[in-house]
């Protein structure tokens, strides 16, 4: 890494293990590690490697302001989780409910506004002509395909779960988990990862020194565990430095945006109901509704990188999705309790990077663990963490160094022979078809699912920036050149994206806000998402080459920004307002231009910053 500041007295510290990020992956790792480090009486059974005689020094740094940061659903089969807590009554977890009923709904377009390929339109017509098949403009799949179902699974709150595990870990005294501590990068020296550097504090938005400057500490560790999630900056740094294994690619993404809602008292949905939707508001957008106890539910959509629309706003689409008759039936009268957005690395196992190296190992979504066929990432992330935890305990006990070879044997081998790998492989081709179109995608997913991974619809994944069209191209047929230019002008003058103009032109009615579930985008940030920013750090969203923005005709970054934190600025360079940023990282992969062709780094860099969502119920 290139330190942005002169080295004045950068503090440094030694540890045995340092982890980047506290998501389910590192949580699983730390649970397993601390259990392995403890003797029968709970006291450490092994001693520190870096400070012989002292107890093990295990540290974990999470950038968010608390450990309850988690936007995910969650519905999971929870195999790994259950194995880690054999005696635990999972029913005591917040918002826990066993999966009681699953539905997959294909949503028709009651408004005639969505862009449906001819084949889809024909299918829609057919379904509509058979009213007994479609109710509330939705067709319920007669059964849930085996690869999708979550039978025997459960829902719970990831945020609350993370908090709970964090508490357990801290109380062992064998690990420390620190929130509000962004890691700026890994310390890579002579091909080895020697630890991490925390972000500088007391700098202005651009990173210039201010009074009270506190250089980020170097934490030097025998092992660095990177579990920083789909858009983690340290994981990406390793990819840039060490490259990706041959054939690996990380081109497929989605942003998931969801709300936790309190259903109206007369909503008949039972806890444990799980509804998946497809087909609406645009065919490319998938949705989910999970019902928790106490009339709470999680409702959200995924907007993928292969949805070729430069105005791909997740927020407005979320509002239209909620109002689809088949969902509105359940959601009418409910109230938004909290809200959030997060990226999903949909490349799955295709995007698997080098998992280990000298002094480092990777776990979780960042390591390609998320299963895109089953739509499951939490249990997979947790399980890879557990596998690494077991490996590290084994190496520690045997006094072996944490180098590539040993980690390969102890961790990667465990991973290769596990269900995570097996199912990941089966899902490898699942989404290729979507590269070609929605219909091909659906067929491909079914093919892959039913053939257990043998088949798929061919499609070569492109990086998002290689495929996203300009406004003019996308709107062709709906807006002429003059109208498109006017839309651009209005967007620039009004400091907002083009999506409202595009969607108006397509016939989407502007949502009527009810102040409860349908609230303005900015209100959603306040509702329960509770976005906050700390002024002590440099901006974490950085435009690398402003001149590229000036010529950028797509400006996807503005429209898809989950928090409206990116707005059109002077000279065509978007302006970033960190007080609205939810750290979803979507701007990173949505950016339409490439700043470093060699690495594929887009023109917008997403770094680690403090703050963001601070939500109770996510």
């Amino acid at each position, binding site marked *: 890494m290139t330190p942005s500041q002169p080295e004045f007295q950068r*503090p440094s510290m030694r540890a045995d293990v340092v982890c980047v990020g506290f998501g389910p992956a590192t949580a699983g790792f730390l649970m397993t590690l601390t259990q392995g480090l403890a003797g029968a009486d709970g006291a450490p059974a092994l001693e520190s490697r870096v400070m012989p005689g002292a107890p093990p020094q295990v540290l974990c740094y999470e950038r968010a302001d*608390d450990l309850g940061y988690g936007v995910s659903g969650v519905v999971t089969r929870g195999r790994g989780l259950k194995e880690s807590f054999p005696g635990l009554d999972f029913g005591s977890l917040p918002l826990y409910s066993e999966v009681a009923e699953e539905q997959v709904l294909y949503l028709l377009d009651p408004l005639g506004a969505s862009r449906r390929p001819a084949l889809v339109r024909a299918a829609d017509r057919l379904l509509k002509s058979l009213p007994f098949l479609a109710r509330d403009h939705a067709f319920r799949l007669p059964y849930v395909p085996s690869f999708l179902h979550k039978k025997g699974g459960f829902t719970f709150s990831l945020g609350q779960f993370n908090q709970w595990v964090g508490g357990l870990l801290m109380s062992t005294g064998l690990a*420390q988990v*620190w929130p509000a*501590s962004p890691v700026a990068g890994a310390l890579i020296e002579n091909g080895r990862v020697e630890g991490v550097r925390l972000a500088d504090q007391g700098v202005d938005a651009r990173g210039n020194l201010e009074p009270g400057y506190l250089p980020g500490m170097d934490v030097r560790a025998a092992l660095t565990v990177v579990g920083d999630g789909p858009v983690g900056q340290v994981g990406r740094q390793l990819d840039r430095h060490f490259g990706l294994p041959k054939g690996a690619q990380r081109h497929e993404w989605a942003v998931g945006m969801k709300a936790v809602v309190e259903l109206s008292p007369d909503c008949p949905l039972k806890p444990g109901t799980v509804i998946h939707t497809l087909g609406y508001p645009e065919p490319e957008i998938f949705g989910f509704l999970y019902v928790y106890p106490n009339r709470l539910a999680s409702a959200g959509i995924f907007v993928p990188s292969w949805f070729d629309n430069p105005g791909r706003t997740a927020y407005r689409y979320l509002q239209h999705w909620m109002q689809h008759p088949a969902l509105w039936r359940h959601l009418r009268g409910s109230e938004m309790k909290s809200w959030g957005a997060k990226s999903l690395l949909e490349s799955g196992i295709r995007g698997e990077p080098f998992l280990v190296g000298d002094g480092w190992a990777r776990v979780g979504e960042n390591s390609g663990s998320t299963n895109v066929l089953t739509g499951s990432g939490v249990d997979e992330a947790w399980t890879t963490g557990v596998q690494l935890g077991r490996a590290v305990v084994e190496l520690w006990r045997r006094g072996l160094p944490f180098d590539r070879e040993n980690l390969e044997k102890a961790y990667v081998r465990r991973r290769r022979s596990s269900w995570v790998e097996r199912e990941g492989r089966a899902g490898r081709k699942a989404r290729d078809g979507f590269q070609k179109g929605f219909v091909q995608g659906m067929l491909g997913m079914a093919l892959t699912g039913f053939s257990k991974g043998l088949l798929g619809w061919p499609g070569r994944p492109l990086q998002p920036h290689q495929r996203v069209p300009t406004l003019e191209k996308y709107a062709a047929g709906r807006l002429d050149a003059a109208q498109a230019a006017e839309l651009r002008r209005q967007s620039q003058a009004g400091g907002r994206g083009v999506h409202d103009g595009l969607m108006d032109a397509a016939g989407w009615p502007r949502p009527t806000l009810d102040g409860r579930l349908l609230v303005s985008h900015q209100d959603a940030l306040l509702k329960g998402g509770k976005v906050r920013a700390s002024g002590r750090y440099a901006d974490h969203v950085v435009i690398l080459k402003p001149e590229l923005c000036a010529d950028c005709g797509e400006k996807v970054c503005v429209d898809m920004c989950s928090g409206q934190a990116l707005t059109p600025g002077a000279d065509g360079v978007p302006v970033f307002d960190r007080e609205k940023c939810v750290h979803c990282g979507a701007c990173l992969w949505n950016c339409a231009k490439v700043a470093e062709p060699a690495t594929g780094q887009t023109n917008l860099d997403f770094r680690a910053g403090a703050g963001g969502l601070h939500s*109770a119920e996510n």
Partner: protein
Amino acid sequence: MPVFHVVVCGGLVPDPLQTLEPVQGPAGWGLKNESMLPAILDPWAASALFEADSLARANPGSRVWLVSAAPKAKLQQVLMALAQKAAFELVAVDAQAGGFSDAAECASALAAAVNSIAGLDRSRLLLFGGWESASRGAGATLAILGEMLGISEQFQGVDQASPKPDGSLEILERVEGGRHQVSLLSAPPALLGWATGSLPEPPNNPQVGMLNMRSAMPALQKAAPSRLTGGGLALSSVELPSQRRDTRVVKDMPEDQVAREIVEWIAEK
């Protein structure tokens, strides 16, 4: 250079950004989903802690304790966010203290905790806390605690306390009209209920955090449970105000006309 023994008392409150709703349970009034709401150290108590930390750093040999009565699990969460910001020794009381608890009852739980601190030199004692909590908002707990500890000099709404080389302190308390009352305290012991103070929130210092946690985790583990029973406070009702107004949203009105409406409205009696 004077040496102070600063004991900071601070409870936990739900993050102000959360939506709060009162509910009545078997144990009396509380907040809906209270255990799920993210908590923070009471903001004015946090100012007190940051002031204590700065005072201690400027006066070597001084010590800072943080005494907090709160549910253990919540306290642990808050500590993780707090422990990197200021150096302190934790004294934890495991109690469900919230907005509907009785101030005097809380004060006795805290008094027991303060009295249990080994090595506390009463002649150097500065008892700090927030002048009011963000939960009860009574401004009573700390004052009663001071009384229980026999502290005869008390200050409330403190925005500044500047020590002089002779160990005396100049103290600024908020009074009406946006002014401060200035007092000179010749020497501790004294009680200072802090308002905002004058320090920004300190940065996160990982080393401070590591050090704090070494002592804080054991302190948490042996936190004495204390059951608050209500202290004779009866709450016959608690409700959210029906404060929603029928807002008239005026769009597209020329500025001149907006200005005229406002001027007229100001003039209305």
